[in-house]
């Protein structure tokens, strides 16, 4: 009886598994204008994009680390505390939407968010464009690329182009995927098997191992009720965007590519260890407890997902 069951399972869930892994290798996005990348890179680090010239994109998205903040929640201008944990900008070009609640479809439209957010950069486009226009060097660089010079759209375009270039390639897992069967250890492979078997793969799939769908935080057990912390507006997730009851606590599934480099996890930065995060996910998303052994193996697998990018060692 049991064998029949297993057979059916294999048929149902692994049919495609034989032919095709649900995770695919990260590849560089081609066709990007190098001049725009260079300009975007400098703008990414430009503190003039903040109200008091104290913060830049880089302040909360440290490219030398994992492209996110090392704090649970970032601090913006005037040292104000943000509402969510900053997500990594690495591989964000492959996300289907931006922000935890997916309120931006593109990286370009995402740029406006932190600029205007009073607890992030706290300024506005008019101010930013004015400040940059008084810099002849910047003006020249814009004029060389864009016929209309410094505009909000062009700033966003340059930064977005730069961000698209931030793809971490050549992870060991990707090497395994592209044929190097020795790239992973047996434990990591076992971790991958468990990752699929537990059903993590249902949400964390694709190039980015996540980032291409929404999921409710606390599918099976009520995460927010058990969190021992009052529910904030940010906790409402996609509900804030659509106003639909069914979207309450719905968040974009984050990419696990650089999860092993992360200090804090989840939109609220409430978890500080990867294994802990794996356990929280199993409990609330799958409604089951996971043994520490299995969690360790899955952690080992997750560590093999992190690739590299020149910016990580640039400074």
């Amino acid at each position, binding site marked *: 009886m049991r064998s029949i069951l297993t057979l059916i399972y294999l048929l149902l*869930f692994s049919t495609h598994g034989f032919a095709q892994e649900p995770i695919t290798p990260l590849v560089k996005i081609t066709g990007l204008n190098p001049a725009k990348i260079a300009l975007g890179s400098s703008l990414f680090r430009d503190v003039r994009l903040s109200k008091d010239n104290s913060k830049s994109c880089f302040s909360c998205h440290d490219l030398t680390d994992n492209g996110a903040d090392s704090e649970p929640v970032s601090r913006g201008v005037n040292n104000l505390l943000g509402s969510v944990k900053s997500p990594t900008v690495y591989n964000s070009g492959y996300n289907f939407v931006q922000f935890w609640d997916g309120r931006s479809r593109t990286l370009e439209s995402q740029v406006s968010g932190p600029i205007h957010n009073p607890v992030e950069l706290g300024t506005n486009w008019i101010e930013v464009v004015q400040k940059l226009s008084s810099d002849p060097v910047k003006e020249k660089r814009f004029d060389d690329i864009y016929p209309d010079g410094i505009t909000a759209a062009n700033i966003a375009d340059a930064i977005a182009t730069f961000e698209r270039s931030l793809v971490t390639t050549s992870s060991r897992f990707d090497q395994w995927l592209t044929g190097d069967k020795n790239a992973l250890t047996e434990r990591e492979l076992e971790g991958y098997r468990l990752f699929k078997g537990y*059903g993590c793969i249902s949400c964390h799939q694709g190039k980015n191992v996540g980032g291409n769908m929404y999921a409710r935080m606390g599918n099976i057990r009520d995460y927010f009720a058990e969190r021992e912390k009052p529910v904030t507006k940010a906790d409402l997730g996609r509900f804030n965007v659509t106003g639909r009851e069914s979207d309450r606590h719905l968040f974009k599934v984050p990419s696990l590519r650089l999860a092993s480099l992360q200090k804090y996890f989840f939109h609220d930065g409430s978890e500080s260890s990867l294994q802990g995060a794996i356990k929280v996910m199993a409990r609330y998303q799958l409604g089951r407890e996971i043994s520490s052994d299995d969690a360790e193996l899955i952690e080992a697998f997750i560590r093999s997902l992190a690739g590299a990018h020149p910016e990580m060692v640039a400074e």
Partner: protein
Amino acid sequence: MSFRFSRSVYLQIFLTIALVVVLVFFLKLNTLSTEQHTKRVDILLKLNEVDAQLDQIALQLLTSSLVQYDVLVPLYEEIDQTTRNITDKNGANFGALTAEIDKAASEIHMQLIQKQELLEQMKTNAALVRNSLLYLPTLSNQLNDHPFRHVIEPHDLVLDMIGFNHLGSRSSRDSLLEKLLLVDRWVKNHPQDQLLKNFQKHIQFNLAVLQRLEQTQQIYLSIPSDSTLEELRTNYFNYYSTEVKASKRLSSNLLIACVFLGLFIIYILHRLEMSRRDVQKASDLLHDAIERLSEGFALYASDGKLRLVNSRWLELYGMSSQDEMPPTLGEFNSLEFGKVTTDDLEYDEATGLHQRLQKTITNRWLQVSDAPTSDGGIVCVRVDVTDFKKAEHQLRLLGRAVEQSPTSIVITDVDGQIEYVNPKFEQVTGYAETEVIGKNPRILKSGYTCHSDYESLWDQLMSGEEWRGTFYNQKKDGSYYWESASISPIRDKLGSITNFIAVKEDITQQKLSHDELQAAAAVFEATQEGIMTTDPELKITAVNSAFTTITGYSEEDVLGKSPAILSSGKHDRQFYVEMWKILQKEGRWSSEVWNKRKNGEIYPQWLSISVIYDDEENVSQYVAVITDMTERKKHEEQIHNQAYYDSLTELPNRVLLMDRIVHDLKLADRNNYLSSLLFIDLDRFKRVNDTMGHEVGDKLLIQVADRLRCLVRSTDTISRFGGDEFVILLSNISGENHAALVAEKIIKSLKEPFNIEGFEIFTGASVGISMSPADSGEALELLRLADMAMYKAKESGRNQYHFFTQSMQEKVHRRVYLEQKLRIAIDQQEIQTFYQPIVCTQMGKVYGVEALARWFDAEEGNVSPAEFIPVAEESGLIAQLGEMVLEKSCLDIKNLEFNGSPLHLSVNVSSRQYDLGFSAEKLRAILERTGFEATRLSLELTESILLEDDKNILKWLHDFTDMGVRLSIDDFGTGYSSLSYLKRFPISILKIDQAFIADLIQNKESSLIPTIVSMADSMGMDVIAEGVEVESQLKALSDLQCTYVQGFYYSKPLSKQELHSWLSKALCS
């Protein structure tokens, strides 16, 4: 006119409207483009495609056949882009076409968004379903030993779940719900059974999600995107076909408008052509009319441009074609060469115009009338009035001729009655015109003319012939006069005689002077002075025989020619200009003139020219009287030459030279050019003169002069300045280089041997050069400076040239000054004698001393021998000085000895002393006076004396050696380091110049000393090294076997007392 004007305005308005209509049609037509249509259809297709893709992905999601969702990321972007294309109201694609299209577009947009949202919900829920299905087997395994298994098998439940989930089978669902009721009941009965409770919870959760998923699916499927898309398509194609129809209509409208427009343009072109033909016809007519005018005609437009001109006009102005005609009036008027316009304007009353006369280059007189036209242009008409002008002139001339005729004119009728007499007649006869009109000319009869003469006169006249003859007539006052008359009949056109005209001339005066003239002609021929007369145009009219004698030209040779054939060319234009000026002013001119005879010989003559005027003060002829001055001139020249030229060389002498220099300096100052004086002194001329006689000397000078003549330009002056000195003035030269070049040429030329009476004579020249104005602008000074430079040249050796320099001048001053001082010093015995020891290194003893003159002056201090010895040589004081030093040193050294050997004495003898008479006899006298032995004495000579390749010198030297005196060459090596010539002279010691010694240590390899020493040794000469200062030099010299040494190493020159103590010291050491 006004009708036509308004019609053309209508035409213009109509044309504009037609154009606007065509444009409007065209623009409207333009709004429909195929390209855009294609794009829109593409977008519609794209919408279909993305919608289908969404549906496909939804299906895959529901069947769990999609393992990852990356594929949705680009699809969403594509949907965004495509929907933007249809919803953007300002976009070029579907922007506000029709309300139906807009509505369908926004509907499909909304539907696609809705589909995406549903898809996202499906994704979220599908994950939950998947995961609970994954977990259920694990849970059912946990129930393996559970008592519930006795109720139902959990695995069956799970299988039902799977069947329901994936196969959606109704039987599975019923079975599942049935089993689930049992589970619920169990859980209700066993509230503590957490395991089954959990199992139940997951199954319930799965079912709940599954239900949600189903609902979502239902909603998704209910979205009528297909029909919306269909609607959009239909709407669009409706719109498109309407547009196409409209555009077709527009095209046909446009075509009609174009056809109308085209027809209209053809009509206008036709009308234009008609007008053009009319204009052409009118223009041709006008041109033809103008061409037919006998007057010149030109029409200028208001802007001055030429509009019309006829060929008569061109002909009048001598132009061959219209191309030559200037295009504007301004240019035509400035065309000077073509015409001369009379200044005075004549107002023609008949036409009311201002008229002028113009004379053209073709010598035609034109009447000019220029009138303005109504449009501001000018019409110009030229009438050829040349013939009128000529006739008028002729008439005026004739009238004037008769009136002013110098002969009397009388016109009578056929009967002889006087009709007209001219003023001359009145003047000659004393009768007024009124007195004689109507009378017969017989009133003038004197009575001396025969009656028969009158008869033959009348016969001849009546037969129509002219009569000529003379009358002896009586004037009104009774006096008689001779007149010659010519009377002829005047005929009318038909040939019949109407009048007679008598032309008569008073010849009384001519008759009287005839005799005088005959006498004058005799004088003219007999005189010794040549006489030539010319007419006012200077054509020779007569010459006498004396003229032929002097000039060689016969009368036939020169008659009718210009006196210029006599011109020698010796006189410039200015000369003749002056001559004519005086002739015109005073009527006569005389001067000495150089002319040319027929045989080409140029000769001086005294020429007097007189102007002969006629009664009206006009020049009638010129008379020239010529006296040959050749002989007198010869005498004058001789006298001049004697005063200014050197009779021997025929070169300018000192006087003329000075004159020329002064003249040249003046010219140079005015014209700002450079000049130079070359002072040339022949070398050894004195000796040629002395040894070969003055005649040879003179011939040498003549040849030198000849050679010099070849070396300079004709404008330069060569002068014999005196004796063997020549001075050349180079006038107007480019610079010092020029002077130097000439000097070099002179030196080179005079270095060549001269052949005189079979002897080859060598001389040479030293040249001094001074430059004007750099050195001086004053003649005498320039000469003095050149002289000074020449001395400097002589000093630096023969065949040299030297420019004057300022330092030379200073040196001369210094020399003159020193000479005076030195003379006094010698007289007062102020010159001291010092001695420098000469040591024999081989034997380690003092060999002798060299006597040296020392001069201490109270003002000048120690004067260096290098300075005062040349002064002494130049002034001749060296003779006195040399002998004084010789005598003094002989006395001083006579008794000195070193270690038993008496000291030798060396005394310097200047080559000048040879000239000044120092000789063996004089030396002998000194030796006798002082008691010094000749064998202890050596005389030091300079190399220069040996250069005088002269037997006398050789003898002079031998005279000394015959006495037992030795000769040494001082400063050997400084001048002419050839040892070979030494053989010819009785030299026994060489003194090597200290410069070589100083050089010995530094340039040991290249030193000449070894050569000198070995050569001297081979010729049996001793060598003394001068100027030895340090031990290393001494060592080097000993190595070279140089025995005798002199210099500061041992001792400086010492006074007699110092020498004494030095010797005793040396003896001890």
